[in-house]
C-alpha cells in the first residue's frame, strides 16, 4: 500500500505529465502533501482567498494558454458553482482535485456539508468527475482527466477520500 506521501507524489507526477504548469490552491489537510510536492517540483503555486476565486483565476490561466489545476477541500466546490457553470458555458476547462467524498472513511461531522458539495455540484452542472479509490492509479488518472478536459473542452473533477493522501487510515 502506498503511503500518503507516495500517493501525493503520484498525483503530482500525473499532473506534471499532463502538462500542469500552475497549481491554484486553498490549503487543505488532505491536499497538503500534493501542494508540497508541486512546490518541490518547481511548479508555480498560487494560493487563493476563496476557492471560487481560485477557479476564476484558473479560467483566466486557461484563456491565456496555461494549464492549471485547482486543489481544495470539496467545500470549495460548493462556493464555485457559478464560476464553474460559466467555465462550462464558454468551454474553458478547469480541473479540480478536491478532498472528501460521499464514500467511506469520512469520520467527522464537520465535513457533512463538504460531502454534500463534493458530489452535488459536479453532476448538477454536467461536469464529469471521478472518485479516486486506488492510490496506485492516481498518476494515470490525472493524465486521463487532463486528456478529457482538453479533448472535450470540459471541466473535470477528481474527488479524493481522505485516507488516500494522508497517513491516517480510517
Amino acid at each position, binding site marked *: 500500500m502506498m503511503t500518503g506521501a507516495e500517493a501525493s507524489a503520484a498525483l503530482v507526477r500525473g499532473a506534471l505529465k499532463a502538462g500542469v504548469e500552475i497549481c491554484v490552491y486553498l490549503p487543505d489537510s488532505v491536499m497538503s502533501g500534493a501542494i508540497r510536492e508541486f512546490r518541490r517540483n518547481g511548479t508555480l503555486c498560487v494560493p487563493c*482567498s476563496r476557492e471560487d476565486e481560485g477557479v476564476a483565476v484558473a479560467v*483566466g*490561466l486557461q484563456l*491565456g*494558454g496555461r494549464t492549471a489545476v485547482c486543489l481544495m477541500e470539496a467545500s470549495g466546490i460548493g462556493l464555485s458553482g457559478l*464560476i464553474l457553470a*460559466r467555465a462550462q458555458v464558454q468551454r474553458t476547462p478547469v480541473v479540480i482535485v478536491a478532498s472528501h467524498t460521499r464514500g467511506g472513511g469520512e469520520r467527522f461531522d464537520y465535513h457533512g456539508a463538504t460531502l454534500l458539495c463534493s458530489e452535488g455540484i459536479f453532476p448538477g452542472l454536467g461536469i464529469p468527475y471521478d472518485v479516486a479509490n486506488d492510490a496506485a492509479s492516481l498518476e494515470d488518472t490525472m493524465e486521463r482527466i487532463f486528456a478529457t478536459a482538453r479533448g472535450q473542452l470540459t471541466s473535470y473533477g477528481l474527488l479524493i477520500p481522505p485516507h488516500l493522501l494522508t497517513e491516517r487510515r480510517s
Partner: protein
Amino acid sequence: MNREEAMNVVAALRGDAAVVMGPGSNCGLVYERADRPATIYNMDMAYASAVALGIALARPKRPVLAIEGDGSFYAGSTVLSMIWRTRPANLTVLVTDNGVWGTGDGSEPTATGHGVDLAALARVAGWEEARVHRASDPDTLRRTLASALKGGGPNFIVASTDPAADQYLGSFVAKPRVGRHLLECAVLMRADLSRDD
C-alpha cells in the same frame, strides 16, 4: 463623470489590452466603441478581476484590464489580496463606482452607496498607495488609465461615476448590448492571446 464618459476613456485607451468585463451596461458601451477579439464581456458577478488576474499571470507581456462595477467588484473583493500577493505588473483593475446596483430599478444602493471605500479597502489589503488611484473626472481617468496600461502594476483605479447622469441604470431601460456570444468571446480571447507565443 458619468458612465458613458468613463467608457469613452476606456475605448480610447484600451489598445491591444486583454479586457475582462463584469456584468452590466459598461459591456455594451465598450462593445460599441472599442470591441477587440481579446474581450470577455459580462463575466459573472464577482469574477471579472480574478479571471483577469489569471490572464495576466499567463500572459505577462500583454496589458490586461479588468472592468467591474462596484457591486460586482465588492462581491469578489477578496481578490485584492490575491492580486497584491502575485503582483502582475501588467494588470489594471478599473472599478466604476456609482454606489447603486445597475439591475432592478437601478436605485438600490450598493455597499459603496452605504459608505464602503474601495480604494481604502485595497490599502488595507496591503496595496501600496502609489498603485491605488481615484478618478472622478474624465481627464484624471484618462491620465491614470494611460499610465497604468503601460505597466508598473498592478494598478487599482476607482472611477466615481454619477448615477444621476447615467441613462443606462436599471433592468428595463434601453441600453447597448453585446452582440457576441460568450463562447465566441472565449474562443477569440484564447486565439488572440496565443499570438503572443
